[in-house]
């Protein structure tokens, strides 16, 4: 096997860039024709990244472009997550585009929607490989700007427009925070390269105020992406208003990107100074957990509910950041996100398939789903239990690792709050289960499920059970991803 070097290392990114150009060209070329074949092009383009990533997965850490771009196990791990998300989101977009709700359809702009999914994915891939704050910022902006457009994509739907505007305003402020933080960091250390900053910080016994302020500003930007308190206010509205595929993309892709940056910044650079920030994160973890889970209880709209639950999940991930003293926390974050990918996207796949047939996003509309489509109801049941952290499903072991990391760092109180979060979240997930399984449907027409969605759901369910029962290999992968950070 040829060991790739130079530009070949960037093959995944180059491939996606090529795909973007191809889609742009085809979209212009096929003026006035139906655009759904573009979705297929994009889907197969993304699927063919799988062998490329598999080929790269045995590579040692290498840098490129004068230290701007780096390929390492952590980045690769997250590229798998981003790729999986992008594939499933493209699939959902194809379903949504042929929805029976006219207001949900993308109409003539369908082609550009696939394009935007690709640009956001490209941004995520670059975030995974960035080794310099400049590169990181540009990559993050690429993600965010794609999302501004996608969120507001349903031009006749006022909720979508509101969500887009909200996300634009708050997102820009968060980007501003992040950039300002980078400026402080640059001012204090004289460099933007992760490696150089790390070396500078290693020699400091405690962080000077300028660096601390810089770190706080950067954290602000990260917490916004990860949907954590106190930068969570956009979440419920944007999740509810955005088209379902975008919500799914935000909840998994964007959150993973946020926590990847957090791992890079906090663990790679600021690890020696953790006494100065760990407690703050523990506190935020507790607040995020309680806010998300308690806020979810009264929700009636399923996407809004998932918005709050997404905040709750961010709280668990923050526990892993707060427990920085051992590798369990970081390993737990990676494991948790892998489980969250299959679990949460399974939920959104069900929502997509359901709303395609005219169902609304109101939870009451899911009444009797188990009679209308036993398959969708079973997939949803499994996914909701996994989200709540019920063994032996994927969500359980992630929570187990994160609670364990909290206990071994001495945050017993935080572990107790996390445990309470499990109970609260079980309540609102089970309410939905009850609606699906116990209540009677108003309209008992069966819900057809298209073949691609069926395949994707089966893959997700296999993932939920597989990761949950046979944890060992995934644990090793997660550990291999983070072990260079320590």
């Amino acid at each position, binding site marked *: 096997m040829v060991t790739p070097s130079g530009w070949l290392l960037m093959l995944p990114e180059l491939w996606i860039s090529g795909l973007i150009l191809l889609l742009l060209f085809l979209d212009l070329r096929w003026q006035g024709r139906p655009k759904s074949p573009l979705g297929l092009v994009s889907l197969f383009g993304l699927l063919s990244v799988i062998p490329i990533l598999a080929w790269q997965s045995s590579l040692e850490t290498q840098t490129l472009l004068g230290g701007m771009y780096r390929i390492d196990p952590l980045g690769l791990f997250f590229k798998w997550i981003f790729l999986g998300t992008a594939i499933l989101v493209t699939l959902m977009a194809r379903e949504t585009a042929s929805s029976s709700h006219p207001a949900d359809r993308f109409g003539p702009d369908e082609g550009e929607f696939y394009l935007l999914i690709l640009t956001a994915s490209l941004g995520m891939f670059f975030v995974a490989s960035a080794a310099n704050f400049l590169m990181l910022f540009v990559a993050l902006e690429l993600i965010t700007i794609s999302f501004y457009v996608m969120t507001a994509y349903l031009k006749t739907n006022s909720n979508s427009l509101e969500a887009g505007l909200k996300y634009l305003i708050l997102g820009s402020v968060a980007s501003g925070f992040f950039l300002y933080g980078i400026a402080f960091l640059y001012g204090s250390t004289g460099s933007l390269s992760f490696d150089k900053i790390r070396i500078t910080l290693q020699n400091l016994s405690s962080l000077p105020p300028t660096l601390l302020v810089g770190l706080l500003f950067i954290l602000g930007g990260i917490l916004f992406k990860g949907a954590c308190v106190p930068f969570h206010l956009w979440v419920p509205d944007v999740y509810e208003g955005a088209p379902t595929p975008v919500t799914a993309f935000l909840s998994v892709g964007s959150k993973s990107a946020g926590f990847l940056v957090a791992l890079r910044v906090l663990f790679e650079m600021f690890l020696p100074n953790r006494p100065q920030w760990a407690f703050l994160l523990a506190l935020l973890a507790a607040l995020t957990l309680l806010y998300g889970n308690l806020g979810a209880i009264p929700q009636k709209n399923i996407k809004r509910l998932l918005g709050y639950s997404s905040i709750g999940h961010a709280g668990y991930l923050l526990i892993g950041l707060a427990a920085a003293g051992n590798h369990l926390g970081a390993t737990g974050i990676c494991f948790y996100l892998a489980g969250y990918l299959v679990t949460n996207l399974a939920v959104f796949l069900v929502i997509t398939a359901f709303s395609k047939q005219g169902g609304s996003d109101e939870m009451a509309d899911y009444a009797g789903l188990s009679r209308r489509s036993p398959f969708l109801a079973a997939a949803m049941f499994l996914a909701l239990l996994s989200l709540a952290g019920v063994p032996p499903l994927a969500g*359980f072991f992630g929570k187990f690792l994160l609670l364990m990391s909290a206990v071994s760092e001495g945050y*017993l109180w935080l572990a107790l709050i996390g445990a309470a979060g*499990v109970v609260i979240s079980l309540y609102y997930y*089970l309410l939905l289960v009850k609606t699906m*399984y116990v209540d009677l449907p108003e309209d008992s027409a069966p819900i057809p499920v298209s073949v691609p969605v069926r395949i994707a759901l089966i893959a997700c369910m296999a993932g939920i059970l597989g990761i949950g029962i046979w944890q060992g290999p995934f644990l*090793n992968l997660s550990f291999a991803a983070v072990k260079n950070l320590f």
Partner: protein
Amino acid sequence: MGPVSWILLSPLIGAVVLLGIPSDRTAWIRRAAALFTGVPLLITGVLLATYNRAQGGYQWVDRVAWIPSMGIAYQVGLDGINLTLTLLHALCSFTGVLISYRIQSRVKEYYLFYLLLIGGVYGVFVSLDLFFFYLFYEMAVIPMFPLIGIWGSGDKEYATMKLTLYLTAGAVLALVGLLALYRVSGVQTFDLIFLERYLRQNPIPGGIQRMLFPFLLIGFGVIAPMWPFHSWSPIGHAAAPSAVSMLHAGVLMKLGSYAILRIAVQLLPEGAYTWLPWVAGICVMNIIYGGFVAMAQKDIKFLIGYSSSSHMGYVLLGIACLNPVALTGAVLLMFAHGLMTALAFAAVGHVYDQTHTRVMADWGGLARQIPLIATVFIIAALASSGLPGFANFAAELLVFFGSWETYRWSALAAILGIVITAFYMLRAVRTCFFGPLNPRWASLQDATLFERIPYVILVSALLVVGCWPRFLTELISASTGSVLKHLSPLQTVARLW
């Protein structure tokens, strides 16, 4: 893979097999469920006969390294204590499947969840690794939600949510305790056999034990159900379909007391010395308060439900004594009470399915119409009141003997509890089965020959153990002895009561 793994796997394989049977082939679904719960019963019977009593300890241990880096291993095995409880579960789950033949709606889903529940409970009883113990524990709790929510009766939605949340809250509290235990033990393993040995030589500091013990005690105490965390249980029993009530009151509640005994008391003895005298006080509340509440019930399933939480007080009392006699009594009582409650719920379920009312005053004179079911219920009522000849008598006697020295007041209260039990049980028998027959029930059907099988199994188990308790006490006391071998007797500590 040894026999114990097959006990655990059989219902889980059964659940997978059920997925492959079309949902309209209900007869095959029922047969499959009976087969996959019958096999563990047979295996358990064989193991009971072949357990090497002279040697004692854990036998038929299977071990597969699962996540070596964290000290997690799949490890199962049986000693006298969990062999007895596995037998109880095998009896209740198999008869439960037979009782469930009456279920007509959504049969496939019903048996699917039922088999998952059964598998989870077996898992808890046979696991000798704390990680898998917890995993199966939660796995046993969750199928309850759809089982009660879909096939239950009465205020089932409220009941099932309350039950699931209470039990999960207890479980996660215990999980935090287990994680803390993992951390402070310092050996990075969840292996229960190893921890038992290791912590005897290198005990955790007393202060930490005293801090951790309540996590496990309350966490597992919720399902036990220890007062004041019992309120989920009567509501849950009442709302559940008969076979689920049978498993729930018969077996699931025992998971709590089993976990307290096996994990909390064994691994944290210092904590046990400090906290068990309090448990001896609390269980008086279980017994007396639960008994009086049972007396006030009009609904027969609520009556049995409160009676169950009252009787679990005896089990907790037996554990709290930390002496071999009471402990053996406690384990035997778990077994006896499980069978008796299962029997009572099965009989009540038979009537309820036809009358659709559970209010005792509405029944009346049923002994004339359905003599067999009436006899079965009377047997359960007498066993529950501690009539000699039934396993309950032997067990309760052991608990009284064992607790007399240690907690005299609690023992007196417990004996008073027997009187209370006899009062409400006999009154229930009178109201429901004697007196003039309510004409509404003139068409009530008694159990058919096939439907009698579960009653025969349960009654004979109660009688056999009642007439020959040594068969089980020998088995149990060898294992309780090894639990206590390294604990100093509690007599001196607890003159408190």
